[in-house]
Each structure stands twice: as C-alpha cells, then as structure tokens.
C-alpha cells in the first residue's frame, strides 16, 4: 500500500518528478481513461476510439516532450532553454528505464490501435506516421539534433 520515495539526485525540477514511483501507472491509467471518455462522448467503435487516443497522444506528447524547450520556472535562469523535455530527463543520460518505457508506450498504442481497426486505411497511414515520428524523435542519436534547423535556438 505504501511506496518508498527516495529523493533523486536530479537538480532539474522540471524532470525529477518522473523518477518517483507511480508515474508509469498514472500514465497508463490516463490513457485508458481517455479511451473510455472518447468512447462515451463520440459513441464510435472501439477501434476508432483507440485511433483517436493514439493520435491525440501523439500530438500532446510531441508538443510537450519534443517541441517545448526550457522549464516552466524562471529561477532556473534559462540554463535548460535550449533543451526539450526529452533531452532534459535524467540529465541527458540515454537508454535509461524511463526512456525505454516512454519509447515503448507509443508503439504499444499503435499496435492496439491498428489491431482494433483491422489495419484499414486511412487510419493505418496516420497511425504509422505518428508512431514513426515519435520513435525516431526518441532515438539516442537524435539527442540535440534539429533537422533543417526546425525548433532550433535563435
């Protein structure tokens, strides 16, 4: 019932909350809850609901993990202003457990979404595009890479 929380050694308060227990479970619960809400509100089939959740998840996580740079507090004095949230977590160390988990979630969502829509076009195309962009953005080689200068610093 109780979990132990050890304060991590990460000084970046924008990302250190991710190392505490319960984050993964909350993430998965939010995904399931939003699928359920979409089903209730739109009254569509389960497969369409999963596609909607998958694409919404793509937009939200791409925007907050890979597009927005910096931290939401001013007293970090802009030392993280060139880094997106993905590049900030765990001080830039690659291939940690958290990063692997975050890479697997969009792939699993893609598999569920495409399975429940029976791999039909056009949903399959959008789903594949979304998961491709997300997984490539999370590669270790893409750390601090800005393609064509998109989202680069001034």
């Amino acid at each position, binding site marked *: 019932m*109780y979990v132990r929380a050890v304060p991590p050694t*990460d000084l970046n*308060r924008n990302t250190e909350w991710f190392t505490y*227990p319960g984050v993964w479970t909350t993430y998965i619960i939010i995904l399931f809850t939003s699928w359920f809400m979409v089903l209730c509100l739109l009254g569509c089939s389960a497969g369409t609901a999963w596609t909607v959740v998958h694409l919404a998840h793509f937009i939200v996580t791409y925007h907050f993990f890979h597009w927005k740079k910096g931290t939401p507090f001013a007293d970090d004095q802009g030392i993280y202003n060139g880094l997106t949230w993905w590049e900030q977590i765990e001080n830039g160390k690659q291939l940690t457990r958290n990063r692997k988990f975050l890479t697997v979630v969009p792939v699993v969502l893609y598999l569920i979404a495409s399975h429940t829509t029976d791999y039909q076009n056009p949903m399959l195309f959008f789903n594949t595009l979304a998961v491709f962009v997300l997984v490539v953005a999370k590669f270790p080689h893409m750390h601090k890479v800005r393609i064509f200068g998109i989202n680069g610093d001034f």
Partner: protein
Amino acid sequence: MIAIPYLTALSTYFSYGLLFAFGQLRDFFRKIVDWWRASTLDGYAPICLGLEDFYIRRLYLRIQDCFGRPISSAPDAWFDVVERYSNDNNKTLKRTTKTSKCLNLGSYNYLGFAAADEYCTPRAIESLKKFAASTCSTRVDGGTTMLHTDLEECVARFVGKPAAVVFGMGYVTNSAILPILMGKGGLIISDSLNHNSIVNGARGSGATIRVFQHNTPSHLETVLREQIAEGQPRTHRPWKKIMVIVEGIYSMEGELCKLPEIVSICKKYKAYVYLDEAHSIGAVGKSGRGVCELLGVDTADVDVMMGTFTKSFGSCGGYIAGSKELVQYLKYTCPAHLYGTAISPPGAQQIISSIKVILGEDGSNRGAQKLARIRENSNFFRSELQKMGFEVLGDNDSPVMPIMLYNPAKIPAFSRECLRQKVAVVTVAFPATPLLLARARICISAAHTKEDLVKALEVISGVGDLVGIKYFPAEPNKQHQEHGTIKLE
C-alpha cells in the same frame, strides 16, 4: 525516506496533470485573444518567454492567498495576520484593515527572541540611539563599528572556531562566499536537498557540481571516488579543490545531517567540509552550539561553518566561521564584505545579547530554559502528531516538522481552514519541494506554551480529518487498550 500511499501518489500525479492541462488550455486561448489585440511591445523582445512563468501564472496565482500573508505585529507565539480579499479569483489581493490574532506556527522563532525580550530589547534600543539604524557604509569603508568586531569575536567563541566574519544577509553569505572559495577546476559535491542559496552560489562559482543522494554517506563516498578517479571533465587533470556542502538541519525535511560519517569520509579523501547551520545554530545541542555539539563532531574537523542569525537569534544576517587565515582571506576578497552594507548596529547588538542569554552570561539561566523548552516542545508535538496518524518528517530534537500533504488541492484547503481557526501555518509546494511531496511545515518555538501546543494539535487534528491527510493508522488510545484487556479477562 518517505512512505507515500500508492493511491495518493497516483491521485497527486493526476491532479497536477489536470492543473497543467487547464493551464495550457488557458494559455492557448490567451495567445489567440492576444493575437488580435495590438501589442504594446513594438519591436522589443518580451521580458519573459511564455513558458518561463507558466508555473507562477497558472498554478501559484490560484492559491496566492496562502502565501505571503502580511502580518502586523512582531512574530511572537501569537501574532496578528492581516486579512485580505480578492475580487478576481486570487490574481490580485487587497488588504483590509482588519487583523486576526493567530497562533504562529510558521516563523523561525526557535528560541523566542523574535518578540521583545527583557535583556535584548533595551540593549538593542540603546545601540539604536548610539549608532543609528544603519552604518550607511560597507565594512571596509566606514561600516565597522565596535559592535561588529565584538560580534565577530562573540560568534567565533560561540561556534567554537578561531575567527568569524559576519555579513548583512544570510542568503548572500552563501551565494557570495562559494564563488570565492571555489573556482573553475574545483569540484563541489552538494546534498541533493540543499538550499537555493547554496545552489546559486555553486552555480556562480564556475566549479563543477555533483550531487549526492540526500544524507546518504555511502553514496557520497561513491561519488567522491568516481570523481577523484575521473578528474576534471574533458582534460582529466586532478581537481584543484574538492568541497562537500551539507546542511545542519534541512529546512524542508527537519532531518539532521549525518555529520560524523560525512566528516570521516571527507577526511579520508581529503575534501573540505562546508556546513550550513542556518536552522541548527542556537536551536539544537546542549548549550545551543548547533549540530556539531549535538552529534559530537569536533569543530576543528569542519573546515567552513556558515550560519544565519535569522532563525534562533531574532535578527538578520549571516556569518562564516573558520580558521584565522580563511577569515582574513575572505575579508580581502568577498564582495559581500567589500561592497555590501554592514549589518545594522541594533541588529548586531540583538545578536550579541541573544548569544549572551543563550550562554547564560547575562546572569540568569533563561538560555538553558529556552533550550530545554524547545526540545520538549518539539518532541511532544512530533510524537502527538505521529500518534494521530499524520506523516511527520524529521528527527527527534529537531524543531522543524513538515506534515506531508501530497495532493495539490490539500495545500490551500489545509492552509485556509487552519487560518479560519486562528492557526497560521506555512505550506510549501512544488518547486521548493519535489512535485509529489507538498507539505505543511511547522516551526516550534520556545515561546510556545503547552496550552498553545495543545490548541494547535486540536486544530490540526480537526483540519486533518476534514482534509484527509492522516495517512498512517492512528495509534489507539491507551484507555481503549486497557479496556480491551480487562474485557478479555
């Protein structure tokens, strides 16, 4: 180590996620609305990027009435809190002329010197008449009065070091001294929960900073070994200087530092120890000399001892105590000494008088009584809270006790309900604490009487039931246990 109920952790993340989502939605609409309106900036860059003050605008301002409450009397055990109201949902707060007398559980008033004291206040008023309210000068120009030299000797004697230097502000003491002591090519290893002044000073120094897990000497040893073996980044040359920075009592946890182990590890690897005793000087230890006396560490083993006068001495300012050569060097180089204004003379006199009271040199044993009272009060309060089922952090004998709240909605609920019942508490949330671990921090004072503490316990227990923060099972009353055994027999 904090034990969080798992469901509470999940609900806290969910609440913060919801707050974040709503904040982003409002920002999004604000951006659309502002696009149509003409901008007054006209070619200038905006002062802050939209993302930087997101937390302040969308989360902090909603519960702004729980922070920064103005008071209109001295911060004694009971004080007057000015009532405020807001017409636009806490974006701006307006003061009224009404005040309410509340029990003060938030001021750093450990020994009760914050209010008028029979020994200290007449002497402070005399020095105000003799020396005026400010020296109007830096220490090196014309700001060193007899009071300042007396104060430095007094502090050095009290702390147990050969010499000391005092500054006008406690925060500045850390952030101006660390860049002097360490430079590029040095290594600073600091505890992960160190105060913001230390973090800023370390960042300003240009040295490489490494963090070790809070209060874990074994992890400190691992980090030291790794860093000494690797050397400076990129060049791998040996480090010029290594300094380990720890605090005596951590203000957000109420925990004591594991000083004996840390000092022995630093001696083994020849690293300097910098001890920040802001909350522990004057409040712990048999004669109030701080965490070294309490844990039995020889002060000669700690290289730099820093502290502030705000907490136990009822004044303001900070000091650094060390060897004579160190203090002499600091007096030549530290910008806070060379360019910052000196401590105001009545403030300095207050510190000297309060140290005399603590040591018993004023002829009475009020100092020893105060120290005994704060120890009794803290232990009593902490054990009662734990019996009621609250999750209270901190070690025994520590006058700082945070009560865990966790959920962001419980922070304003606890704060406002306690204020309505005339108990003023300080609540702390993200980003001063980690995201999950929001807390209400209680600071016990020697000025609190037993009745005050009992009243506070009643109020906190009632509010705790309403808000739902009794995360641990409450210990059953002794009477019920006795009845149980009698019935069985």
